[in-house]
């Protein structure tokens, strides 16, 4: 479905990002696995792709820095000659109640989760505009749609990504670049492992399908949105959440 295409996945070393890298590679895309700190995990992802017979490199860079974002895109074009798909997946959490949330926790989450999407999208828009084609897929979250106590920073960033997705979709549509967002619900990753059993039981009650999702559930949709089959879809927010938000 994606042979000949080149994808850059931010935060691709672990969790949902890793599953996205592996699925895009399975579909034939060449992958640039971006990571901020987990070099070992990024190399594992690259090795996983190579084991599938795919082609991949790992590139370090902090999406919160525009300079780093430009370097990642340049490294992608240098390694594989073009860039067809950008998956803005990199994200962090610094949860706390509003009253206890430190300014730096707010800033860190906004800078990575929201400004990071702006930075990478801006950096990639030049080569994509020249190619007259591109797919940008942003990973937001159901909490950006419904709110969540203890996550004022994360929720604000994810809600911001939804607005940014729509704005960028309108701006880039005339150049055949589509921009969509996926809103995962509760997906089994290291990020959600931290939740206590009590919270999990409560959560399941709010999920019609009654269970958590897997990273692959997200990756499958990314692969579809990145393919030519999704050419007429842009500016959309798609939930993969077991029916949590309807």
């Amino acid at each position, binding site marked *: 479905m994606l042979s000949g295409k080149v994808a850059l996945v931010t935060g691709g070393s672990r969790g949902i990002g890793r599953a996205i890298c592996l699925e895009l590679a399975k579909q034939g895309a060449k992958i640039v696995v971006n990571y901020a700190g987990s070099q070992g995990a990024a190399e594992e992802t690259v090795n996983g792709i190579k084991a599938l017979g795919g082609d991949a490199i790992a590139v370090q860079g902090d999406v919160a820095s525009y300079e780093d974002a430009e370097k990642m895109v340049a490294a992608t074009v240098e390694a594989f000659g073009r860039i067809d798909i950008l998956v803005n997946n990199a994200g962090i959490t610094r949860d706390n109640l509003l009253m206890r949330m430190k300014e730096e926790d707010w800033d860190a989450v906004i800078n990575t989760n929201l400004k990071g999407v702006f930075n990478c999208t801006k950096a990639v828009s030049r080569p994509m505009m*020249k190619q007259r084609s591109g797919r940008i897929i942003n990973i937001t979250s159901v909490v950006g749609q419904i709110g969540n106590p203890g996550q004022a920073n994360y929720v604000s960033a994810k809600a911001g990504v939804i607005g940014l997705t729509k704005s960028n979709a309108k*701006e880039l549509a005339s150049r055949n670049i589509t921009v969509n967002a996926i809103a995962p619900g509760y997906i089994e990753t290291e990020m959600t492992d931290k939740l206590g059993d009590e919270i999990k039981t409560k959560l399941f009650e709010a999920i019609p399908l009654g269970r958590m999702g897997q990273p692959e559930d997200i990756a499958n949709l990314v692969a579809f949105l990145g393919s030519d089959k999704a050419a007429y879809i842009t500016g959309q927010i798609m939930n993969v959440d077991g029916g949590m938000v309807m």
Partner: protein
Amino acid sequence: MSTDIFARVTNIIVERLGVEEGQVKLESSFKEDLGADSLDVVELVMELEDEFDMEISDEDAEKINTVGDVVTYITSNK
């Protein structure tokens, strides 16, 4: 020197905006006379950067309205 620059700039404009060579004059405004939208102007600036191997800052790019602005900019920053 600047006639050569004008010719190269004209080529890019003709190709990018699909206008006739005769329409491209120094006083032509990209948006009003040549039918460019703001994204077209951004793309033109990108191509000019490649063609003339230079970087045009966002601040300077925003001041570009006419073909003459481009030729003057390139001539004085080359």
